[in-house]
């Protein structure tokens, strides 16, 4: 397993270099620049600005400088746990061209924990709802207990979060006044308990969408497993349906869900842009999209690189879990 992990991590290096290189040059091909604006900046001021951010150098020189700056030079795990890439790895992602006075490292360290919590709790919620719903549906195939959760899941998949989000905010925020209509932190209060109501709607909105997919995948996986011989054997031994399902069937039946988790985590962490906009959450998803629109070169590169690393690591974890759960597979 160690060898497998190391090989996969080594393979990741060229992948990351390719991603950064492509992003770097594609960004520069896009019309407009970080300082193009409706009220144009005088020519010589623009030149001075470009000089300040090192944008006057030839492109290959800029590329080389950037690569040198972001290259990891040390390893400091405690700092890395705080997403401080500068202290943790010695990687300097440069200053943001849009938000003066803030570096890309700072913006990521400040906003990623928010997106991470939003995403992880949404996935947790999706699992808590999706797996039981899918299992119940599979066990009661073609009955009301199958049709009801599955039609709900279909509706969930069809309703994008930019529809569901405002509806939830309207119903549970404005009309029923159960939760605040915008999210994340209670402003002016420093007690963490006060933050809880602010997090409900965004996490539920994001979680429900993935719960729907997971319910369908669980149902499919379970149906296949429930017809297997070893399940019949388990039943024949006289085990209760509950034990058969939880102990024997789920382990294999969840395979599709676990494979799905990799891309889901990537999607949840990078694609929470819509939820973050609707609920005004200070997360990384917004920087990810807005940076591209603002041509904030360093912030785009920084977020892309950060997400790429994250996705590689998450996929690796998912692959390891799959092998551990499936005795038929081996690490090679």
């Amino acid at each position, binding site marked *: 397993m160690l060898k497998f992990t190391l090989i996969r991590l080594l393979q990741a290096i060229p992948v990351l270099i390719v991603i950064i290189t492509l992003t770097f040059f594609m960004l520069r091909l896009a019309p407009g620049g970080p300082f193009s604006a*409706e009220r144009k900046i005088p*020519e010589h*001021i623009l030149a001075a600005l470009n000089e300040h951010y090192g944008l006057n150098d030839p492109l290959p020189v800029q590329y080389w400088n950037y690569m040198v700056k972001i290259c990891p030079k040390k390893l400091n795990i405690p700092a890395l746990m705080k997403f401080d890439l500068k202290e943790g790895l010695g990687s300097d992602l440069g200053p943001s061209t849009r938000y003066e006075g803030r570096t890309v490292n700072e913006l990521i360290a400040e906003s990623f924990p928010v997106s991470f919590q939003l995403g992880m*709790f949404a996935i947790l919620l999706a699992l808590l709802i999706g797996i039981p719903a899918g299992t119940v549906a599979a066990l009661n195939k073609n009955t009301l207990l199958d049709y009801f959760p599955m039609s709900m899941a279909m509706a969930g998949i069809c309703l994008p979060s930019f529809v569901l989000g405002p509806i939830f905010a309207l119903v549970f925020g404005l009309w029923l006044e159960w939760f605040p209509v915008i999210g994340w932190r209670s*402003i002016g209060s420093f007690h*963490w308990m006060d933050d*809880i109501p602010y997090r409900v709607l965004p996490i539920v909105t994001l979680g429900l969408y993935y719960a729907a997919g997971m319910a369908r995948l669980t149902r499919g996986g379970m149906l296949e497993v429930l017809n297997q011989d070893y399940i019949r054997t388990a039943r024949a031994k006289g085990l209760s349906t509950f034990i058969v399902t939880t102990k024997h069937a789920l382990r294999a039946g969840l395979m599709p869900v676990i494979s799905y988790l990799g891309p889901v985590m990537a999607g949840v962490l990078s694609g929470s842009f819509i939820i973050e906009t609707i609920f*005004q959450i200070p997360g990384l998803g917004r920087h990810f999209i807005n940076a591209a629109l603002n041509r904030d070169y360093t912030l785009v590169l920084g977020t892309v690189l950060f997400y790429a690393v994250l996705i590689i690591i998450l996929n690796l974890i998912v692959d390891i879990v799959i092998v551990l759960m499936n005795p038929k597979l081996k690490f090679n």
Partner: protein
Amino acid sequence: MKFTHLFITNLTFLLSLLFISGCGPRKSGVEQAAEAGILLLGNHAEPQSLDPQVATGVPENHVITSIMEGLIAYHPSDDTAIEPGLAERFETNEAGDVYTFYLQPNGKWSNGDPITAHDFIYSYQRMLDPNLAAQYVTMLFVVRNAKEYHESLSVEDPNHTPISWDEVGFKAIDDKTLEISLIAPMPYFPLMLKHYSWFPVHPPTIEAHGGKTSRNGRWFQLGNHVGSGPFRLKSWVTNQVLEVERNPEYWDADTVKLNGIRFFPIESTDTENRLFESDGLHKTHDIQLSKIQEYQQNLPEKVRTDPYLGSYFYRINVSRGDALADKRVRRALLLSIDRERITENVLRGGQIPAYHYVPMGISGYTSKTYFEYDPEEAKRLLAEAGYPNGEGFPVFDILYNTFEQHKIIAETIQQMWKTSLGIEVGIHNQEWKVYLDAQSSLDYDISRAGWIGDYVDPYTFLEMFTTGNGNNDTGWSSARYDELIATAPMAGTDEKRYAMLQEAEDLLMDELPILPIYIYTRPYLIHPTLKNWNPKLMDNRNMKYIWLEPSGE
């Protein structure tokens, strides 16, 4: 980061999901805040910079003017009034080109240091240094030798001797007296000083965080910032909230009524309006186009549409020598747009149909009605230009940046031109930066545009259409126009100056490189507890005069 806490926070939330029914209704946020004297303000976007010499945008303006101040401050309702700021009073010489400002005797920085004339000198020298790359540097060019100084420093020739700072028209007579010499008599000069590019910065703070021309922006971060305004920075979380509190060192602290302001950078109008409806804001930045009518019917006392110093128009690319280079064609296009239909049926936010380019409301300047909606005359002109009933008219595109409102307007105009003139134009949208690029490289036929004034004066609208100006973007050029714009600032009196600018607008509206469509308004939602928030042409606020009156509910 306290992970255990965060974990427990979220775990408790998950548990609380199970007890959803247990949650009770919240207290009204605006009422609570009004009692505490804290203004909750929708501020549209995250400020890019709080450096008065570097910043450029509207959200930045609102924050900067609450934590910094200039020689002259904003009046609560009258944009033409001179309201004392860091200067207690000023006088001019007989010729009207030298201003002497006497600073507030008890003027202090938020850290307690006295504010001196030398701080102003430092700030202006900083702004004129090309290495700072201050975008509004041209604002200072009304001062004697400021332009020459700035340009001489930009020259890279090593043999070139730059102009000495002593020759520039800024002078500290003593600690509390500042003298500014102008290139010509300019009666409107004190009004210009309200703009934040004229605000002084605290030299020791600048020096402690990178130095005079550093753009690292460290000096205005939380904990470092030293300001001169009625409020001071209290907390700042990117994309969440920026909070300011009373500045006890402010020279006029007794007048300040609010205890603090929270600026919410909410870019989504839908989200912002929803927050207002749930009593989370005292005032929004905007109202969603699709919801204006609903609000006007249901919450008429909370909807306001203030006049705004902004013009919405279409640029025409006249540089290609095609049909659009023909003045008669441009006039035909102009006359066949039914502006009232656009403002009343499409926009519905009180916008004003524009029959001139410079917005109305600038006292002393007349906004003439240069034309009227006249599809018959338009038809005749088009026929005269060789396209009777639009026959043989080449295919053109209207370019706009991707935005629902621009799209609907473009579609409406497309339809109007088809019906009145019988011509087919396409419409075409581009993402913001791509659109800007296309516009400045004249890679378009007709392009949607908007312009918001920098200060209350026609000059800020007319200056951009001079030959080769970076914001002209139409390829249009007129020697007479250039001459008028170049000489108007030195006219000596407001009457003469306005007459020259008026002639310039006459010329522009005769030649028509642009087609005016409507004059902007600012639709917004406002809670009744917010007081003294008066209609202002540029939405410039002096936050010390704003107060909140709890309704006691």
